[in-house]
């Protein structure tokens, strides 16, 4: 008996090794400079186009079922004329300690070796637990079988599945682009270079507010920006350890000298 227990504990030690679960191939990170972001919404549309997000129409939008994986939140402080408007793009934060991942009973959402929080559409049974647990409200559900009106279906990205009714989905950091870059790098016998992977939103961002890269690569632009003194993460007090890093907006505090 004692020998058996010893064997078991011996094997468990592998997993008990500090940091075993943090050994990742990559740690994809997005840095969003809120001082650059002007809230134009190009990233939102890029996401629609890249990820085959359905257009749900006015009635469904009224029920808060718009599919935007990425949204730009706008907060307004103050009254006229001391109005302060702040924009913040919010997408799946790919938390390292994701609340959603503990919720799913079937492992439809889990953390992969790239530090991404991924969603397996085929495995999803639709308990909504992940979406309920998500503090950032970034998960979207396929309430219906959404149709792409002919011939708009010709624009569907063949690299991304069209999700069926009854499954949860969310921002993937454009995992298809990450895959493509990794495959290409592997074919050429090298590692993925900084700037090789650009999610659709980052690619399109007119102001260049979004930077994407590997945090494990200390020379990547994202890793450098991630050390900025302006860095903060959304709802950091929840300790979900998000992978999206925001850089603080530079803005005067208190009432401004308007009027």
């Amino acid at each position: 008996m004692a020998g058996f227990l010893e064997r078991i504990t011996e094997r468990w030690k592998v997993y008990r090794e500090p940091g075993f679960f943090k050994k990742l191939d990559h740690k994809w990170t997005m840095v969003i400079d809120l001082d650059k972001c002007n809230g134009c919404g190009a990233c939102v549309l890029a996401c629609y186009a890249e990820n085959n997000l359905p257009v749900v129409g006015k009635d469904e939008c009224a029920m808060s079922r718009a599919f935007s994986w990425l949204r730009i939140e706008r907060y307004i402080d103050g009254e006229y004329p001391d109005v302060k408007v702040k924009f913040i793009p919010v997408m799946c934060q790919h938390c390292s300690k994701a609340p959603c991942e503990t919720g799913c009973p079937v492992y439809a959402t889990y953390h992969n070796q790239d530090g991404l929080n991924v969603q397996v559409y085929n495995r999803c049974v639709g308990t909504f637990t992940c979406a309920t647990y998500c503090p950032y409200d970034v998960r979207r559900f396929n309430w219906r079988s959404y149709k792409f009106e002919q011939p708009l279906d010709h624009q569907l990205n063949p690299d991304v599945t069209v999700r069926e009714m009854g499954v949860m989905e969310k921002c993937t950091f454009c995992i298809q682009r990450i895959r493509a870059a990794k495959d290409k790098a592997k074919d050429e016998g090298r590692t993925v270079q900084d700037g090789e992977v650009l999610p659709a939103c980052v690619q399109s961002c007119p102001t260049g507010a979004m930077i994407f890269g590997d945090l494990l690569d200390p020379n990547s632009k994202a890793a450098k920006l991630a050390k900025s003194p302006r860095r903060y993460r959304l709802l950091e007090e929840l300790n979900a350890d998000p992978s999206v890093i925001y850089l603080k907006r530079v803005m005067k505090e208190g009432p401004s000298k308007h009027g």
Partner: protein
Amino acid sequence: MKRRDFLKILGVGGVGTGLGYFFGKASKPPAAELIPYLIPPVDVIPGVANWYPSLCTQCSAGCGIHVRVMEGRAKKIEGNPLHPINKGKLCARGQASLQVLYNPDRIKKPLKRRGDRGKGDFEEITWEEGLSLLSKNLTALSEKGETEKLYFVSSQTRGSLNSIINNFMASYGSPNYMQYELIQNKNLLFANHVSMGLNNIPHYDIANTKYLLSFGADFGTTWLSPVNYSFAYGQMRQGEDGIRGKFVQIEPRLSLTGANADEWVPAKPGTEGVLALAIAYAIVEDGYYKGSDAASWKALLSEYSPKDAAVVTEIAEGRIREIAKEFGQTRPSLAIGGENLARYENGMSGIVAVNILNHLAGNIGIRGGVIPNSNGSRTIDFKNNINALATAASASKVKTLLVYNTNPVFTTPKAMKTEESLRNIPFIASFSSFMDETTAMADLILPAHTSLEDWGDDFADPSVGHPVVTIMQPAVSPFFNTVGIGDIILSLAKGIGGKVKDKMQWNDFSDYLKDAWKANYSKDKDMLASALTFDEFWNQLLARGGWWPADQAKVKSVAVSPKGIEAHIAKASSRFEGDEKGFPLYLTTYAHSSYLDGRGANLPWLQEIPDPMTSVVWGNWIELNPKTASNMGIKEGDTVSVESPFGKINAHVYLYPGIRPDTVSMPIGQGHSTYGRYAKGRGSNPIDILPFKEDPNTGELALNVTRVKISRVISSEKMVKIEGSTKELGRNIVQTISPDEFNKMNKEVS
């Protein structure tokens, strides 16, 4: 069960399954079951994407795009990373142009009017029939010797399309080719012409400026070249040099761009021009202007002392002087005048005032200021505007009208009676791919390609200090039975015959384009210097997406002088129609960031993504200050009727603290009566209730020119917005640091 029964059931079941399989097969088209491209066409590898460089035509900025094409279908549009205008970025409208190509509401075949005009009753005809119908009409017109009664109106076209239309009209014998769209910046062009002697729009170097003073320029969404300016804005804020530029926005309603400004100066609507002159006066008076002619400037601006202006603009004198000080002392600084300023009744003089500011601060011709563009000169016909067409049509001086890519019925005020005057025209042919309001009036519709299927080129204006020419090439083969606009014109020339045919001897428009570029090539020493043959050059052009020599000699503008512009300075603040008692609120309109002048309203993506400032989707709204609304007992989401002396429309109320209490604001773009399933019958069009006011110099329609009154009405339609709450509630969602802290921080880092 007996063994025999079991076998029977098994057999029947087996046959049934097999039959079912074959029936299933037979009912599907065989192609659905097969992988196409057993022998693929050139360029097609199933599963591998091709990226074709081309040109975005969603607005007049002229961004270069890359179209991702897989198996012959366009999948995504991204910015061309080599392109100097948009540097690989692209705005929402540009990316959505994919849905122009695959729009279910496209006109798929040539159509001929069957019922009454404007009723939308058309029958399908072939291209041969359509072209011969039109060329017969034109032949008949020229036989009667009334060639000048042919009018051609198109959107702002630059480059080869412009030249082929000009060619065609000239060889046909009509001088009446006019360009019209709602947003064509004629006031800006004219003001720059009279004050700086420029024939095109200069490059506003936002990226490198340290103090940006914007008079209602919504450069983040719609003004001139939004992607270029957005990128520049990012550079200005967090550029390489680490010095963060300051940005002040002057406008009555906080636009998306204004929302990002460090300071918002909500001057009274119509007084921004006066404010600009007052700032200019303060610059001179307080000695920030170093020129020798300071005295004559002071004399010219004497009427606009900050003290007097403070009363008119409702901006404190100290504030004006402070802006003057910062603007005059910060090096380099830059003032820009946007659509909000340019679309007042005396908008052109407002832009002149902005140019004066730039001159006084010494911003013209320097890095981070106003850099004149060398990109050839555009001949802008300020006289040949849309009202000239309407007037001619009303006087029955128009026999045949050709319309391409513009929608004057939608974008002109009802008071101008464009629709009625078009009814006077015996024959209207439209080359639109969509059933917009103007095309619905047509007798013949010959649908042209969308930009992803066609050839073309574009000379960007504003450019970025050096010429930028973008080539448009077909990324996909035509999806419907349409023909390129250039090819339609060439076919027409052939159909008309005679001298028109002789002068237009090209096989198709791509040949024309290539010939035009051969001419450019042989003329331009930069191109010749590249030591490439023309074919090599042409291939490189197509592969890169265009031509942009960065090292061209800089051009200089004429210095702004007090004498030259005296005549163009605003004498007073801009006038608004409607008396203050009956119509207590100023109405300002603006181009919506997604729909622009209404052209984007038929794209489901653009309808679905929330408006950046209000988050409203699938409709439009009127913005109202919460104080004004509560005084009137109006709640958010209520429907109100918006009444000006010239008409009445309904709109939903959105409460927006970023607007002056005496002002309401409405976006342009919705309210289409036709234009496809996504756009039709959605919201209302504020242009409908505007008076007809055009600038006497430029013919530009004034958009911020009337007062309105609003009152609640009952409506079953609802406004849908995405936002839940816009209050942060101290949750530290968008964290900020003060500029001082930021500057300290920068020093610590470096």
